[in-house]
């Protein structure tokens, strides 16, 4: 190789390198970690903002007269309120579905603390959260969804006349001035309900004429009434099909500002409808040490609506089995024996599905149950809903 040739080769190589170098220099840089994985941060909570500030809210101190349909509507002067619909439905072929549709109202600030006039229509002092769950017993599927919106711009809200409570596209609504019958509509993706509920019994005022005390401290109580037996009719969509269904539903209405004392960790709540026309509601407030609180209570509602209150000592409730959630790892009681010696009731309560755990925001178990047992020695069956709150905390 001649010298010049060699030098020329070297020069050519150098030129190619210049190109390569330019290519390297212009190579786009790597995306930042945040470019791929999203921004990570958490909201620090400041105690200075007065968590659990009760000032400015009304308290449930004494029994009050209930007036319908007005009391079907919201009570904004209390901090918390809910419309709680649960029910067991069946197709004509006997396929079972359980449903839960709940609207929670939470005050973001006391009415007094909210700025009177704001330019933006988004300004709001109430927040609505809705939970919808469908138990597809035959399909062995449990679906749970939620909605969350402020009471502004018509995104969510509640009113008494005509009755309407809604959170985005889910609603409970009545065209009648009395607020009954009520139409429930909720759904997402391939699960939905569209039901009309009529009440078969008058409203049951729970506790002391509707004042349900949850602790010794005055004001740790709620106003609480139920429509314990509502006949339901409509359609359930599940698994890509629409099913005409009918069955029985239960509505619980409760509003309060502060209900539970600090020594309580949660509750077990049962609402059962027996085939003999009687309905039974029992809640057991659980103390930190696992024992039932003295303010646990219930009611046995006769076929004609006559209500007999139940106290802690009137009821025994034993868990026969447990189920551990594969998702949360929380262990829930899962089958119960409930006896009310005073009424000669001895019932075994079995979940339709073991897994009816909702993890849509807060975590709890709320599911359709089957009831079998004896009433005064004679076999009896029924259906209902059980709610388990505060497990695994």
């Amino acid at each position, binding site marked *: 190789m001649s010298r010049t040739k060699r*030098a020329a080769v*070297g*020069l050519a*190589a*150098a*030129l190619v*390198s*210049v*190109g*390569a*170098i*330019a290519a*390297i220099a*212009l190579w786009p*840089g*790597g995306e*930042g970690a*945040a470019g791929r994985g999203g*921004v*990570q*941060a*958490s*909201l*620090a*909570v*400041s105690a*200075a*903002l007065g*968590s*659990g500030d009760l000032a400015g809210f009304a308290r449930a101190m004494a029994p009050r007269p209930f007036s319908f349909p007005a009391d079907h509507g919201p009570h904004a002067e209390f901090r*918390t309120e*809910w419309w709680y619909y649960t029910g067991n439905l069946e197709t004509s072929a006997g396929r079972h579905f359980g449903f839960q549709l709940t609207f929670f109202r939470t005050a*973001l*600030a006391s009415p007094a*603390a*909210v*700025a009177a006039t704001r330019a*933006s*229509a*988004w*300004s*709001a*002092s109430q*927040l609505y*959260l809705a*939970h919808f769950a469908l138990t597809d017993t035959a399909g062995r599927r449990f679906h749970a969804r939620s909605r*969350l919106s*402020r009471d502004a*711009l018509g995104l969510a809200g509640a009113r008494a006349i005509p009755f309407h409570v809604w959170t*985005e*596209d889910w609603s409970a609504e009545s065209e009648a001035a009395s607020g009954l019958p009520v139409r429930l509509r909720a759904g997402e993706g391939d699960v939905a309900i569209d039901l009309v509920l009529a009440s078969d019994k008058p409203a049951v005022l729970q506790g002391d004429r509707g004042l349900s005390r949850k602790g010794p401290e005055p004001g740790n109580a709620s106003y609480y009434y139920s429509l314990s037996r509502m006949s339901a009719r409509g359609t359930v969509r599940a698994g890509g099909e629409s099913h005409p269904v009918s069955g029985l539903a239960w509505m619980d209405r409760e509003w309060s500002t502060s209900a*539970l*004392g*600090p020594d309580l960790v*949660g509750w077990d709540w049962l609402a059962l409808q027996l085939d003999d026309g009687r309905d039974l509601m029992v809640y057991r407030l659980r103390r930190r040490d696992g024992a039932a609180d003295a303010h646990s209570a219930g009611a046995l509602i006769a076929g004609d609506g006559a209500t007999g209150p139940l106290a802690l000592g009137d009821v025994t409730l034993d868990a026969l089995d447990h189920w551990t959630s594969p998702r949360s790892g929380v262990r829930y009681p899962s089958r119960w024996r409930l006896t009310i010696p005073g009424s000669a009731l001895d019932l075994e309560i079995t979940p339709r599905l073991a897994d009816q755990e909702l993890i849509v*925001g*807060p975590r*709890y178990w709320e599911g359709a149950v089957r009831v079998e047992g004896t009433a005064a020695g004679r076999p009896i069956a029924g259906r209902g809903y059980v709610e388990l*709150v*505060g497990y695994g905390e």
Partner: protein
Amino acid sequence: MRRQLARIAVRHLGRHPWQLGLTVLGIALGVAVAVSIDLANESARRAFSLATVAVTGRATHQIVGGPSGLLDDFYRVLKVELGVRLAAPVLSGDVAAVDRPGRTFTVLGVDPFAEAPFRPYLSDESGGAGSSAPGAAAGERREPPPRDRLSTVAALVTRPGAVLVARPTAGELGLAVGDRLAVRAAGIRRELTVVGLLDPGDLASARALDGLLVTDIASAQEIFGAAGRLGRIDLIASDDAAGRALLERIARALPPGADLVTAGARAGTTAQMIRAFQWNLTALSLLALVVGMFLIYQTMTFSVVQRRPLIGALRALGVTRAEIFALVMTEAALIGAVGTAAGLALGLGLARGLLGLVTRTINDLYFVLSVRDVDLDPLALAKGVLLGVGATLAAALAPALEATGAPPRVVMSRGALETTMRRMVTRVTWLGLGLLAAGAGILALPGGIAGGFAGLFVLMVGSALVAPAAALGLLRLLQPAAAAAFGTLGRLATRGIVAAFSRTSVAIAALMIAMSAAIGVGIMIASFREAVVSWLEGTLRADIYVSAPSLVGNRPDATLEPALVARLAATPGVARAGTSRGVLVPGPGGPVQVVALDVDPARPPRWRFREGSADAVWAEGGEAAIVSEPYANRRGARVGDAVRLRTDRGERDFRVGGVFYDYGSSAGVVVMSRRTYDRSWDDRKISGVAIEASPGVDLGTLMAELRARAAGDQEIVVRSNRALREASLAIFDRTFAITGVLRTLTVAVAFIGMLAALMALQLERAREIAVLRTLGLTPRQVWGLVTAETGLMGLLAGLLAVPGGLMLAGILVFVINRRSFGWTMPIDPSPAILLQGVVLSVLAAVLAGLYPAWRMARALPADALRDE
């Protein structure tokens, strides 16, 4: 053996500390420039991307409104009537801190209750910090969001002006929960209250959240005076049939003027613009490195030639060619490594300085960005290492191959080498001509910015290769003149350059490239500035301009209250008040900047038109518009075509009446009359007012009167024609400040190259000089000879840089600018810049030759001769 060779390499390097030091410095500077630009770019880009991620979140699509935003009722329609679950309203904008001049924030207005799927860091379900609050309201589990966390969100929603700030930002500003922060949004003062702190999960998130004020959508509407309006609605749609069906359903329900776009489409457009700007910087930074490569090539060639006898002897001792090659490459690698290491350190420092300039320009032109620290991007550093060492090795390849050619034991005279060299010049020239043709070919092909720069680089290298031959030719022309001027010394000087052409040619070529760059960039900037000046003259025809303060230099995103405008127009002394309104309008090909002007038809802006005219625009009726050159270039619009825009009355076509030269927006603008605009949009807002004073009215008094009329209402910017023109040019000059810095750095590298070359050359010529001294040349004459030689080299490089610079300027103006920014301008090859380039070249060379000349002149002839 290998160890001994390595020792030879090290010892040789050690024996020429000057040479070594300058080469290392040259590489270091080249690497530093490239790395610093890369780091600064990368930091700005990441800040941008983080800022985008922070506000875009996980949205896949967005519904964007027309000029006046989206009516917020459409959000209710989406959620309640259409049952769209994953939708979140957003209203964001920029505000300036009142008490901290220069500090800006992005206010991100969201609905915290819709945020969880979009920006989980804002939701109350992201877990972590909040759950630690000890057993607060443990029993209230039936009401879902835990009370403690909710209380912060509740405060955010229910308190007007409540904001969340990232903890590091709060710490830096000395803000705690409960503190107030006064800001100005479009000039109107708003009081904000910090109600909560966001704890970033990692460093990247901390950067993303820096400068972000998260607020409730209600507060955002109040801060920006936009009650009833949303900036956009974010959506998440799955990439499957269901997702597409959802989008379809939403698209059918869209109100007129709104548009459904993929998320980040807007940010993407902005990112593209910024990227074009950054490409230009990167290319300029590479120029310094390429000049640095010449320096390395020169040093290595010099060291090889100097040691030809030694290499010959080594070969005779049985050292193989491969080992010789390795020896030279090892030396190069050592120099490269040291230079690169120094370059990285220098680059980091330089990046801190350049980052400010880069960010400033981005803020002026594109996006409010706060970048306050250089991101030590490992990739950029790795690229720097690869560039530095790679460039050194590449430049050393030719000398290394050359060294292997030394035959055993034969000591080749330099004279023979020079003969070979001159033969080689011919080949190199042909190669250079080939490259020039190839470069022209690349530029002729349609290609993006990358193609433009590829062509530019090939042309630059080509001209560097042609430079030696051209220099010889020039020298021949100059010889008589030099002889006439300086007599024998002049003749000696020209001969000296030719005699040592293997050395001098490289130095001349390197200097020529650097000076071409200086001249080319200089002409480009001057032409650009000239074009901008005449454009401003045509555009700014009124006496006084009023606008709301905007945070992006050239973007009129803030508006004036219509009542205020009416009050200003009624001020005594105002003969006419024309208004302008600049908005972003969704269009099929992405957002389009539309400017609606209410101007006196008798005194329209005097723009220069590339084609067509504005007659149809100012005439009554008709849906006519004119488009700026960048718009026409980017979207291929021509006179007679239609621009389709999504208006509040649905999609409408606007006929293009003309294409005008515009340097205000590199995205391009569509200009129409206010009447035309009002027929299609329900937007009554005004971005700026142009006021013509009645004859005889004192402008200063009138401006004071205008300010007084706005006092207490909205902070407004009132500027005279001249002040606005000066402000515009100040932005222009700021934009090009970084270009100027890069240009200077490139010349600095070339200067070092020149110094190194001359040092080597003069040291090598010690004997020759000694002979001249014994022949009676005085030290003063020696000094003169050497200086004449170096000056002549500088002159050659400078003269050759004139055509090179003109070529570069042409490419920058007609190819790079057009492809990067969409605009072109008449090229203005001012003789002053050309002359300046030549003078600078001569000065650089003479300066570089001062020290070698001084040493030569002082050397004792006897010492030099005794070495024989």
